């Protein structure tokens, strides 16, 4: 089974499927040299394909990540409180997707942007309720806080542009991550 740091690096690729090698250390929160060595090992094992600096997870790498989720989280994922938590998440997830879609179609209406940010802040509070069970989720809180600050500072790209660490990207990755912890497939 993967060790925790290797899981963090490979899971970042599992959630995104594809990422720049240069961006990966920041995504994982580990030194670049350490991440580079791990990535070399992943490539040697055929878990990751390096397409000239663009890293693409392979089915064998996905299987490694899924095995880690199963072995580490199967007990936590079956707790009733997690299922209840997910029901609450689903409700604000629908709102978030609607607000971001509205924001795109109103060309960044500031009132809609406020709703997007308020929904992210609700999710951050919700995530705080489960960080005792899944301590690495504090990284999502840090990323959300950083991107909210960037949006508040006037950089609207960080609402939902796919090529930066936007609120929508972080939300999507968190959703995928939580489904993997629960051991549930996506329904849509």
């Amino acid at each position: 089974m993967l060790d925790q740091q290797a899981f963090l690096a490979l899971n970042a690729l599992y959630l995104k499927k594809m990422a720049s090698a240069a961006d990966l250390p920041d995504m994982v929160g580990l030194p670049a040299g350490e991440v580079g060595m791990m990535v070399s090992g992943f490539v040697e094992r055929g878990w990751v394909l390096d397409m000239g600096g663009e890293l693409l997870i392979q089915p064998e790498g996905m299987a490694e990540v899924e095995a880690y989720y199963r072995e580490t989280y199967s007990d936590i994922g079956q707790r009733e409180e997690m299922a209840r938590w997910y029901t609450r998440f689903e409700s604000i997830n629908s709102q978030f997707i609607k607000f971001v879609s509205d924001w795109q179609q109103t060309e960044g209406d500031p009132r809609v942007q406020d709703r997007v940010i308020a929904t992210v802040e609700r999710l951050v509070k919700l995530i705080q309720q489960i960080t005792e069970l899944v301590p690495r989720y504090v990284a999502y809180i840090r990323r959300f806080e950083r991107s909210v600050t960037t949006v508040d500072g006037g950089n609207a790209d960080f609402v939902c542009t796919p090529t930066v660490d936007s609120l929508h990207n972080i939300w999507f990755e968190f959703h995928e991550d939580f489904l993997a912890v629960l051991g549930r497939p996506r329904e849509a």
Partner: protein
Amino acid sequence: MGNDHEGFRFVGQGYSVVPVGSHEGVAMNIATPQQMIKLLTNSQKVKETVVVTPGGTTTFVAPLLYKNPAGIITFAGTPESHLGIVGRNFRVPIIMTLELEGMDGIPDGTHLLLECEGKLGRVFVKEETGAGAEPSTAGPVVGDASVLG
């Protein structure tokens, strides 16, 4: 149903995610993340491909949007979704919850034209022009030049 696309036959309609005009491509059914990853390794092929998700899940094809596919067709979901949000950013032709008329599915290799105007998306199949006909080259037809830029 009107058809302004000579040489193409209307086969169905659904929700258009972003109004980007009309674009052509060749259908490929992608049913699993593994198939999606295999396609991702061939950037040129992605650009020529209209990705068709035959099942009810749609989100797993979203990473393909980073490689500018010719289009995406789903049989479920709405533009208010993760796929819709990412697709709107990249201005890729996406038609969701397609209702086919006179077809049960879209076979791989079918030459398609996606017309994305307003909130409605229409799908057309290139008419066969007889044995020995040269296949057309997939690519944009009308619309925003930035789509494949």
